[in-house]
Structures are given as C-alpha cells and as structure tokens.
C-alpha cells in the first residue's frame, strides 16, 4: 500500500502511515477549521489497510492541541482501528504531557469505546 506522509502545518498534525516501515503516527497540533476534510482520506486509508493488515499494528498518537472537531474524526479513526483489531493485534500508544490530564482523559474516552484496541498510555 502507498504510504501516507503529511508534513505538519500550524494547524494540522504530522501524519505517517507506512506499513512497510511499520510506522503509524499522528503527532503535534490538530486544530484545523475543517477536520472532516483533513481526516477523511486518512480514515479511508486505514479502512483500506484493514483489508490486509500487518499481524501487529502499533499506532502512535502524540498530540499537543486537539480541537473538538478533530476529536470526532479521531473517534472515527479509532473505530476503524477497532475493526482491524477483530482479526489482528492493534496497539495504540497514547502519549501525553505529564501535566496534561485533559489529553490523558481524551485517550481514555477512546479506550472506553474502542474496546478491542490495546491502549498504552505513556507520560512524556
């Protein structure tokens, strides 16, 4: 599968989805005006990837700011990963600043809903 590599901007995160290198990562800031537009291709890619996933997918999230519009899109992304976790192992590494309990709480929300994913919460 063709990898997705997006450079970060002031309001969108860096995104690397590369099965060959086993790198799945979203990091930095996600506060776009139109989160739907930004995340749709990414979610589509993950659904496509789910047809023939690696035995183990380790997905890293290391986000600094997230707006609520992105929260909703990330929920869709988690659900797509949760589908994959039906037949393969999916680990989400959720990084958060030690002081940022709100970011930890957001990760816990996703964990509560996407039950088949193994969540690891990692304090920076």
């Amino acid at each position: 599968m063709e990898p997705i590599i997006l450079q970060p901007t002031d309001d969108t995160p860096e995104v690397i989805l590369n099965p060959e290198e086993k790198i799945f990562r979203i990091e930095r800031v996600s506060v776009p005006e139109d989160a739907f537009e930004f995340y749709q291709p990414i979610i589509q890619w993950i659904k496509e990837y789910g047809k023939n996933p690696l035995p183990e997918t380790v997905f890293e999230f290391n986000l600094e700011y997230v707006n609520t519009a992105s929260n909703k899109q990330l929920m869709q992304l988690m659900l797509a990963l949760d589908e994959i976790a039906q037949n393969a192992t999916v680990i989400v590494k959720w990084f958060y600043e030690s002081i940022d309990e709100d970011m930890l709480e957001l990760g816990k929300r996703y964990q509560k809903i996407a039950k088949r994913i193994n969540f690891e919460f990692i304090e920076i």
Partner: protein
Amino acid sequence: MLQIIKFIRKANIMAMQIIDDSLFDKAFDLFTRIKQQNFEYVYRGFFSHNISKKILSLADVNIQRSLGVSALQKRIYYIMVEGLQNISMHQEDADDYLEKYPGIFAIQKQQVYYYVTTGNLVLNERIPDLKSRIDKINSLDKDELKQLHKEVLRTGAISDKGGAGLGLIEIARKSGNKLVASFELVNDKYSYFYLQTRIPIQKGEEETGDDYSKLRSALISIKKLHLTLNVENILLYFNGFFTQENLLNLLSIIKGRMNLSLTTIRLSNVMVEMIQNIIKHGHKIDDNEGVPGIFFIRQLDSGDFALLSGNYVTQEKKKLIEDKLNFINSKDLDEISELYDEILLDMDNVDSLRTGLGFYDLRIKSSAQLQFKFLKVSENLYFYILQTIIKNVN
C-alpha cells in the same frame, strides 16, 4: 441526608452563579466601553521578539482586510515594525516592572486616518532626551527630515539605546505627519511613554497645526483603554476579524507569554473552541471582511481566568445556541461527560451546532456554568457574548 447534600450542592451552584454574574456584567460593561472606539487591533502585554512578530502579522491581516495589499498598507506595516521595535527596546530597561505595567500596541481607524499607537515604560531620566528628539523631528519639514535621516545614517550618531533615533525619524517620514507623544508618571522610576502616529488613508491629508488637538483626543482614548486593560488585568485582547490565521497567531502569543501548564493548555484549547465557534457561526456584516468579533482573557483576583467572546449572530442561530447552552447548563458534569461520548460517535458532520462538541468541551474544562447574553442589534441580528471561566490549577 441525601436531601441535605442535594441542598448544599444547589446552594453552592447558586452562590457561584451570583459571583459569576457580577463578573460577567463587569466584563460586558468593559466590552461595550471598548467597542465604541473603533479599534482595529489592540494588544496589551509583554513584547518579546516572537510575540512582536505575531502581533505584526495579526495587525497586518486586519489592515489588509480593509485596505488590500497596497502602498498604504505597506507604509502602515513599516510604521508598526518601527513602533514594535521601539517598545521591545525600551522594555529591557524595565524588567522588574513589566508584569505589573505591561505595554500596549493599538491600531485604530477613524474617518480618513489610521492611528498606530504604542505605550511602554521608560525610565523617567530618559524623558527629557526623548522629548527633545521628538520636538526636533516635529520642527522639521519633509526635506529637512530626509536630511536629518541621512545625517544620522552617515554620522552614526548612535543613541545609547542603539536605535540612533532612526526609528522615530522613520515613523515621522513614513506617516507624513507629526509625532504625538505623551508621558504618564507611573512611579519615581518609570513613566508610560505613549507615541501616536497617524497615517492619512488618502494622500494629501497632510497635517496642519490646528489638527493637533484632534490627535491629542485620539491618544487620550487609547490611554483610557490602556488604563482599563491594566485595571481589569486583561492578558490578551483581540478585536477585529476572526480567521483561522488570526487564531493561530493568538495561540502562539499565549504560548509565548505563559509557562506551559495544565491551565495554559486549557486556556489554549478553550480559546480554539470559542474562536472557531465564532468563525463557524458568527455573522458576517460584510461578505468580504470575515467575521467581526472580540475576544479577551482576564485574570481574576482569585487567579482564575475568564475568557470572553463577542460576535454577531442571526436570530435563527441565537435560538439554536441558546437552547444548546441552556441544555448543557441544566446537566451536571457526569451527565455532560456521558453526552460527550455519545456525540463523539455521532457521524453528522454537517450541522455542527446540533452535533458539535465545542460547548460540551467548554463546560467540562470550565469550573462554572457557561454564561451568555444576547443583545438585540436589529430585527434579525443579535450580539452574542459567551464567557468561560478556567480555574487556575497550577
């Protein structure tokens, strides 16, 4: 027992409401006072190199919206650069007082002029020198100014502040008008130094001596605003057109002036939600100009922060916003959290007022209920003010 607990809880909520209402009224009062002055852009606070850069681009975005990219816009830009440099140069002298007496930078558009005003602390002992420099510049005509500029460049008559006085000369040349300066004594060591320049929107509006009193009154309005912002402890103030670009600039200003903490992160996140809410639902008065509005952050006596936004909405939007806010305020935090999870899963991306998480997020991060007010502006238009309180948890 349960009854008593419930009663106590209710009483607490009510007490909180009473306190917050008075805060809200004060903020509203402040807002209306400021609103009448036609400020295009105002910043109050510390001016680091990085913050100055952001202020410059924020102000420039606003000016470009009214003027387009033009020779005039470039002149104003240039004057702003010099003015901001002037502030950061002088604030080095006042390190220990900056927290208590921050500077101000303001852009105002009135009739046929733009006004660029800076205000910052200077050492009292520097006042005579500054005054004589400004008087000298004001006594010269266009050609003489050009001559002086050349001379200073050539002889390198560097002032002890490294500015060679070139900044002031440049500001005077670019504006084509006299400089207006004013000093306000702060204490035995410092004064505020206000410098105002006015730039005619149309050529040929050059200064005549008797206009000087008008300039003075424009300066007095800024001085009053500065005093108000200082008294009310407003950390960040923005008045202009809201765009994503402006929001990102404001975000970096917060980042630049506050230490990283849970409170700062919350302030930033709440600001993003409030301003994106304005961008999405605010009413444009003129299609070309974006959504006009106001946003400010106050630090309260308790140390907590109040974030306040104001913008126009149509009657139809008013109803939706009102219903949603009343609904959210009627729920306790556990209920809000459950609703949050439900909405996370709601796939509707079109009607964000119905299915958006913004207000829920504000309520969760806020230590109190969300406060709001609608003021009727015309038949179908309201001015909508929202206040969120963020507890200082550091």
